[in-house]
């Protein structure tokens, strides 16, 4: 067992979002409180930097977040030891061992066996894994849609800056809401691929791009048509004086022959694409297995199932399945970029590959990803509350690749909302955790940094020097089964609240913890403390459904209580 962090004379202290030992393990987010002289903290394996969450403005104390541990074995373990390197300002590095909380097991789908419709998956998959997978999948799909808009949509590719897409918050919201529709099965990338590429892959696999390849091979003497210098060198090295002697008993010489081959980079990409599609489709079908159990039909599920069967058939019956696999990352060659058929395939392949890579990377940061989703929900809810007056110029800078589980850049201008119900037309500001030091001048005596919240919402008077009237700290945790451990959560929250002492003489302070709601249920305030200051809220993963819930909560908060 590793030494728990927080030992005497240690520069770091391990801390959890809620009081340790009082709530189910997975609900916890782990943070490291480090002294001012700590520059950075990084994990040895996998090599990751722990993101800096906030800085205590008074003593410079820094708070880093730790990722979840990803385990591949079938054993259910609650914690995994890992070594962390602590880098100090003077350049020195010390190593400590910490226990990381484990993430739900990754779902690895192995596709269909032959033509049967049963999907085989690795063992030990629980609902938590499926819920995490579902949430991450939905989020990634929306992020992908921002960067590479669907051709059928009216959207153009957004402008880029520093490799990030710049998109208005309203557009961002509409993209995230797009996937909420009547079909019970969720809209995912694989559904799009199945819709768009079914005919294309059939066509490509049956009529792949071929090239005439020149190879050197032993050929019967009478059939040899072309020799080159290498063939001559081979011939010279052969024993014998005459051609007949050199040809040997098999009467074969080295010659150049031309052979028709489908082994081209673009066809390797095609094979990789089909295999990736198999993975994605299997996962999708597993995710929606409950529909089958409930005997409900979904067009999307049927479509994906049909596509999975087709991909499996094409890989086993056409020569594409025999082509060697891609070595390394695929590079778009001329055919992939400009050929009429292959150029349609390449963007989908790129998008799928990116999606799956990100899915792997973001698995250990699912709390932070959930937090980002909740933040977007809160912004949308504030827009709803504000009504017709829109925030015109506010825009999000969206990264293509995740940064410790977050795609929205911290520098994105969030803007201000107006509380339409307040007579003074108070402003509402949203401050992300990392921007916390900026609000210190106006919340001086309240140690809000200790809450390690993802977002702060402040109701401000627009024309006062010390404007904050109300402040709400929002923390997000992702555990799909946390809602079932209400009592433990109550105890943990109560304990952590007393630890934090989030009270202020000049303004009202609230705290809200957002966890995912059980499947098919709406938002709910699970718990509220006696002073109506702290609430535990469950939110559905579906974006549009969660907005309604958050809107309700915020309206209550603006009224002064939950």
């Amino acid at each position, binding site marked *: 067992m590793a030494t728990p962090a927080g030992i005497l004379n240690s520069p770091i202290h391990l801390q959890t979002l809620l009081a340790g030992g009082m709530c189910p393990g997975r609900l916890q987010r782990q943070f490291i409180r480090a002294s001012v002289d700590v520059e950075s903290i990084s994990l040895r394996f996998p090599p990751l930097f722990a993101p800096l969450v906030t800085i205590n403005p008074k003593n410079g104390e820094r708070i880093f977040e730790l990722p979840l541990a990803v385990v591949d074995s079938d054993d259910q373990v609650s914690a995994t030891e890992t070594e962390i390197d602590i880098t100090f300002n003077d350049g020195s590095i010390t190593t400590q061992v910490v226990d990381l909380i484990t993430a739900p097991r990754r779902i690895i789908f192995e596709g269909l066996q032959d033509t049967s419709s049963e999907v085989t998956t690795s063992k030990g998959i629980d609902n938590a894994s499926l819920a995490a997978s579902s949430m991450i999948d939905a989020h990634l799909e929306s992020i992908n849609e921002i960067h590479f808009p669907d051709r059928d949509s009216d959207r153009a590719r957004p402008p880029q*800056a*520093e490799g990030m897409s710049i998109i208005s918050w309203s557009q961002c919201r509409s993209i995230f809401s797009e996937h909420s529709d009547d079909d019970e099965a969720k809209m995912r990338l694989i559904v799009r691929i199945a819709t768009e590429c079914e005919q294309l892959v059939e066509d490509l696999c049956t009529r792949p791009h071929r090239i005439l390849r020149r190879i050197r091979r032993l050929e019967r003497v009478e059939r040899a048509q072309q020799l080159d210098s290498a063939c001559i060198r081979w011939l010279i090295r052969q024993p014998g004086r005459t051609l007949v002697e050199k040809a040997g008993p098999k009467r074969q010489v080295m010659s150049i022959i031309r052979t028709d081959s489908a082994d081209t980079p673009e066809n390797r990409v095609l094979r990789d694409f089909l295999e990736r599609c198999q993975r994605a489709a299997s996962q999708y079908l597993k995710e929606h297995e409950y529909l089958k159990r409930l005997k409900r039909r979904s067009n999307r599920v049927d479509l994906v199932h049909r596509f999975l069967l087709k991909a499996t058939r094409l890989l086993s019956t056409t020569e594409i399945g025999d082509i060697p696999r891609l070595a390394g990352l695929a590079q778009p060659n001329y055919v992939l970029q400009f050929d009429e058929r292959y150029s349609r395939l390449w963007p989908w392949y790129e998008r799928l590959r990116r999606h799956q890579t990100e899915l792997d990377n973001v698995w250990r940061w699912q709390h932070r990803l959930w937090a980002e989703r909740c933040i977007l929900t809160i912004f949308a809810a504030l827009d709803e509350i504000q009504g017709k007056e829109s925030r015109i110029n506010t825009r999000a800078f969206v990264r293509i690749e995740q940064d410790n589980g977050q795609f929205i850049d911290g*520098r994105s201008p969030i*803007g201000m909302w107006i509380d339409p119900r307040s007579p003074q037309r108070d402003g509402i500001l949203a401050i992300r955790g990392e921007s916390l030091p900026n*609000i210190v001048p106006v919340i001086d005596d309240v140690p809000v940094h200790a809450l390690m919240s993802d977002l702060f919402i402040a109701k401000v008077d*627009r024309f006062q020097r010390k404007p904050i009237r109300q402040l709400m700290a929002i923390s997000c945790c992702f555990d799909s089964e946390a809602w079932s451990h209400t009592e433990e959560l109550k105890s943990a929250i109560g304990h952590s609240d007393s630890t934090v002492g989030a009270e202020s003489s000049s303004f009202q302070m609230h705290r809200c913890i957002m966890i995912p709601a059980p499947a098919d249920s709406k938002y709910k305030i699970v718990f509220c403390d006696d002073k109506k200051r702290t609430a535990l809220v469950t939110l559905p993963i579906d974006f549009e459904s969660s907005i309604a819930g958050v809107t309700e909560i915020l309206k209550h908060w603006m009224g002064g209580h939950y």
Partner: protein
Amino acid sequence: MIRSADNPAAPGLGLYLDSIGLRAGTSTDGHKSLCIASEQYPIPPAALLPRLSGEHIAADIGCIPDIRGSGHYLPEDALVDPNKVDSARFPIAFAWKKIIERDTVDWGWLTPEGVKNKCTAYEAIAIVAQCAISDFGYKEDQQVAMIVPNSIDETIQESLLKELRLSCPSPPKLLWRPIASALAWCEEHASQILDTNPEPNHSVGDLLCLHLGFDGFEHCILKLIPRRHGSEMFLLPARSLPKSDTTITPNIDVLDQLTECVIGSIPEQQGFRWWTQWCTNFLARSFAQYEVAAGRPLEPNCITCPTKEDIENIISSSKSTLQIHKRWVEKLASLNVSNVLGVVATGQLASVQMGSHTFAGRILLQAGINPSSVKLYSEGVHARFGELLPRGAAIFAKRVSLGLPSYLDTIPRIETIVTKEGEPTWAELIPSIDEYVLGGELWKHSSKPSELPLQINRGEQHLKLTVWREGHDLVREVVRDWPQPTKEKTAVELEVRMFPGQGNPRVEVKPRQRGVLGFKRVYLDWSRSEEKPYGKQEALDNEERTNPPLEKRKASLDCWQETLGSYQQRTPAFRRDQAWKNACDCTQQLMGLYRRGRMSRIPEALVELRNSLRQRDETYIRKTPAEHASAVSSDGHLHELANDKELLPMLVTKLIEIISSNHDSSIRDNAFRCLGNCSSDDPDVRNIIHKFVSRKRRPTAAELWLIGGCLRNPADIGEFAKRFVDWLETLNNPLRALARILQYREDATSKIPSAIAIEITDNCCWIARQELDLVLSGDQTKLAQIYRHASLCIVFMLRRRKYDPAFLPPDEPLALEAKALFARVLSGIDAEECKNLIRSELRYLTLFAQALCEMSPEECREATNNESKCKSLLKKVAAKLDTAEQIAAMGGFVDPVHVTKLMIDYIDKRGRGRLGVPTD
């Protein structure tokens, strides 16, 4: 904020970017124009600087402002440095201020990441305009007009249009602010005036346009001219080019004062003021209190506004920065308001009540206009606050899109360099037009052959078009080539096209005969052509010439005063105040000496006078190029600051008397020289010279001095030139006389027949070569005056090309000989310079080779065509030059190398600028 749904399919959209707001007006066909944003009070428009590299500058015109650069204390990009104005937000008020004050420093923002991002004032305005246009529901078939202050000059206009073109898919047209307000006035009052059936195209009266806003105070008088279009009559405002002092820009501190009045004193002055002032709408709302016509109470949820009294107190306070600039008021008071028919007052302050009058009314009283006696149309009183200008712009846009007349404007002067009789000169492309032209419509003008006959010479393959336009200090140039040289001289016309008020003329060369220029269009588009770093005069000086400009002698004040002093010294017996007058009475003075038997003192006095008059001013010589100045100019004038100007004709008269009454040759000679130095144009002098020129006997040295200084009559000059060849025995004196005549007199070569001119040039070449040979052989130490005068005669005789373009072409043997001569001299004067010349200009190689290597012309020609031979030849020449004997030239105050090179250039018809070689 208004949205596209509120904007019906109107043909015109008018846009007004104010300091504290943004307004748009629309005008539908057949209906009255309306201001679609009048009910909104948006925040002061601003540009938002990017934080990320690659992020674009954005516009912020929304009701809830962007937090970036707002001055709030969170988040970090909202912060404004209290010590600096620059921030992530660039309010348009500051952009206009920068433009009008010609502040070229970009607005900057140091991002939290430490990157300095910048934005120009033009960029900010263009981006906000583009955002506003799309936000107000722009449609492709809509014409958009944007209001600009009346005082912005062509350079600003052009820069603004350039940025608008880059930012907007369909760039708006610019409209002068007084025209916009006048159009709104006309919409209201035109029918009353037109009902009286006024005579078309004649002014019916004047309209005074007053703008009293935070973005500037402006007054402008426009003429009201009825004009018929089809069957319809329009009353159009006509604008003349404005004077700069009709506009002043109040300091932005005015807004600060008003803000402070409401908010009170704030510890974080700058940041908080920024937040309250540039990210809220309260100032606009405050001034809406003066909206008498609307009479509506303010909305309950508006933020605190200053009271009417507060605003009035601020404006009338003696400490207020709103106290109008004294000169502006004086200018307003000096306007001729006798014909003023109506007044239109716009701007936030126009309707502010000050005692019994509004602010606009008070200003009118200062201008001598009784507000009740004219058709006054004021914002906030007769129309909604902030409505008139966008409405006027919308009317303009609608009329332009429907092809109707909108307003009348004046065209700026446009000039180009043409070569007239070998002399480059600026020619006006647009004759002075008294009439106004229709603004907003394409205006074309072609130069008529009768006004400006233009042609392109034979053998030309490229054309340099240099254009200057009024309002610009610098010129623009474009050089166009065409595939084949012109086979014969081609008559061309120059066509000018431009949109009045929108800048950017396009000057196109149109040959009468199609295809002469290889079917290529040869034109200068002002906006796209290169701006040269020099003005009109410098452009003219840089122009290549076929003949050198005159080298006249200037009049020096110092020399004249010294002359006066020297004469006073010679006559101490006279009273000082009358000394000069008496001294000038040379006859008495000299006769007195004669009678008293002091014979020796008479010539001495004349010699003294002669030398004084000849004395050159050293300060002029030090100029580059050098100038020659003495007491009297070569035109016979004194310096403009010289006193006693009447003394010079007196002196001339007395000298003539001496000549006519005296037979002593030395006295006469000195008197001749004195007259020559005076360059007198007296009729008696002309007669004397005429006699000298027409008689058979060769003139004496003194007579030649007189001829050189005073001969002006072209016929006499022609006669002198004919006889000149015979008088060359004395070499120097006739040469000096001819050189002076040629370099002083504009039309000196007009009556010299080309054959005579050739003969003189040939002789001069011979003389100069003889001089050179003497120097090279060691018989003479340096090239002296004879060489100088001979070479000047050669070069200034080129001015004959003015009257005979075929005179001495560069490839003629005589021209080659002259160039070879100068090249030889040049090689001797400065071997290193010559080497550089050889390296850079192979065309001279033949001449050098011929001169220095004694090679045959054929050999040399072959050598220039062959690269390797050419190089070897160059080496030979360079080797020769290394050992060449240095030739000392009597340079005096000229740069012999430069002058000699310039002489070669002039023979080659590509000289630039003055020689800077006086005869003495």
